[in-house]
């Protein structure tokens, strides 16, 4: 009884506190509903990074499991600091250098936003942290293409430079209010949560880095058995869950658009996963767990740019199309023989391109009407396809060229490719002095 009373008292106090509106320095009120959802989304997107570490870690050999997981974890360190230093300013400041990226001196170390509330009613810290999580996971995705053969130092230098020179400019072009892709066509290039910025950029960069650094020793002759598919499945599950924050959070609201994005995300992931195991069953005779996980990712990647504009039927077709095309791409990769180790390009690159282009056929009517009004009369899906093609082309070309330069520089100056001996001994022993599966041995 007494405990019950106390709970009542506490909830009563909380209700009173929360009823007091909080205001920003300029008097904008905080919308607690939106803020709560955006805080949750930020957390969910961060959860995707350990999810990715588990997904990738399970797919590499036992001797590289820690080194591979560190590729994701170290990004949480470096990219978070860089984001606070200059990343947010470069991404969401005003155009400088002809719009190459943005800048706002108030965003340096986030000094100027200590008490800022954005017009949508959330503290600017929340928006900045939410966007910062995208800057963490994007370079970590590249690690999948170059797994098991890069030096730790070289990798760190590469993702730091890549974040500054590839991610921040692309993020500015696509999502900042004065970014040129944000303003292209009637209502801008459609990239709801990062089809171009996150997935095409990381996938294409991964491919370029993999081609430049060359295949792993023994590839493709030596079979590379995944160290722990159980961990990969858990990782894929965490990614699916986290993706709700990634996509539904990208509405930067807590209402109808959020619900639309969340629904599309769920449906596309399910459709992608089912499509993949059906294709496998027909092609290979068995449906694999890794296939299901790959299908989840293909569906999620494809719906990322589209989540705000497609309805469930469109999301089903997007998931289907993405899995079909990614499966074909990976089959082609095996024939071509290049070593995109964990298929960062095959799933994120190809899936992102597929989603960004295919989405024009499934856009909901209300969006097309709004676009027509904005364009002053009419706007067709073919015109939007033109805008999408331009955005995709620019994302591919820009990330490919800058990545090639960065990989070359890092490899010459610091050394990016691991030595033969390091590769044979494994990243864990060579770079970290530890072993991932030590508990399997009596000690």
């Amino acid at each position, binding site marked *: 009884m007494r405990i019950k009373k106390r709970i009542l008292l506490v909830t009563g106090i909380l209700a009173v506190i929360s009823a007091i509106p909080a205001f920003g320095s300029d008097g904008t009120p905080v919308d607690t509903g939106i803020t709560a959802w955006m805080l949750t989304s930020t957390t969910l997107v961060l959860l995707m990074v350990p999810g990715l570490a588990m997904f990738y870690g399970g797919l590499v050999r036992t*001797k590289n499991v820690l080194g591979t997981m560190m590729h994701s974890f170290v990004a949480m360190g470096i990219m978070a600091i860089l984001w606070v230093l200059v990343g947010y300013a470069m991404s969401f400041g005003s155009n400088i250098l002809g719009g190459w990226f943005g800048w706002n001196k108030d965003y340096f170390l986030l000094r100027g936003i200590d008490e800022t509330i954005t017009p949508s009613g959330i503290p600017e810290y929340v928006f900045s942290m939410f966007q910062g999580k995208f800057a963490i996971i994007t370079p970590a995705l590249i690690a999948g293409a170059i797994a098991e053969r890069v030096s730790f130092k070289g990798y760190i230098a590469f993702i730091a430079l890549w974040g500054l020179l590839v991610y921040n400019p692309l993020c500015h072009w696509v999502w900042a209010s004065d970014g040129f892709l944000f303003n292209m066509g009637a209502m801008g290039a459609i990239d709801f949560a990062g089809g171009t910025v996150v997935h095409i950029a990381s996938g294409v960069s991964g491919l370029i880095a993999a081609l430049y650094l060359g295949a792993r020793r023994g590839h493709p002759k030596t079979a590379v058995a995944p160290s722990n598919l159980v961990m990969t499945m858990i990782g894929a599950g965490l990614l699916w869950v986290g993706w709700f924050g990634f996509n539904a959070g990208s509405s930067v609201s807590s209402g109808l658009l959020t619900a639309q994005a969340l629904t599309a995300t769920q449906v596309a992931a399910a459709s992608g996963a089912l499509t993949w195991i059906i294709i496998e069953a027909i092609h290979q005779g068995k449906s694999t767990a890794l296939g299901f996980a790959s299908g989840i990712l293909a569906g999620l990647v494809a719906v990322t740019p589209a989540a705000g504009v497609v309805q469930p039927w469109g999301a089903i077709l997007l998931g289907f199309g993405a899995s079909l095309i990614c499966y074909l791409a990976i089959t082609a990769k095996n024939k071509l023989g290049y070593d995109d180790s964990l298929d960062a390009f095959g799933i994120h690159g190809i899936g992102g391109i597929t989603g960004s282009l295919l989405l024009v056929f499934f856009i909901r009517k209300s969006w097309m009407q709004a676009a027509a009004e904005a364009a002053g009369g009419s706007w067709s899906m073919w015109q939007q396809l033109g805008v999408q093609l331009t955005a995709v082309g620019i994302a591919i070309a820009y990330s490919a060229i800058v990545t090639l330069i960065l990989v070359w520089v890092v490899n010459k100056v610091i050394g990016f490719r691991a030595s033969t001996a390091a590769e*044979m*001994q*494994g990243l864990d022993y060579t770079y970290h002095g530890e072993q991932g599966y030590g508990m399997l*041995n*009596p*000690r």
Partner: protein
Amino acid sequence: MKLITAIIRENKLDQVREALIEADITRITVSRVSGHGQQIGEEIYRGSRVIPNLIPKSRLEIAVNDSFVDITVNTIIKSARTNSKGEVGDGKIFITPLEDCIRIRTGERGGTAI
């Protein structure tokens, strides 16, 4: 026929296997084992260097006909050594006589079954 059992460093497994395959010795059993010989192993655990009681090693078991003993042993020695001189902890090789060998599929026995 002999059974060659080699205990080697875990991080030399790839080198040894590749060298053996190069020398046409492809039938092998590998397991993860722990033990200690002369070596005092050191690992990093939360910033301090610690010495585990048992050091993880890889154990290779290779059954060979007599004429293959030398090449197998030499290949392992060459590829499992740290540097060219070798260091404490590089491991050991045991050679034991093998009474018989049977291929389960066909039931054949002796040298041809290896």
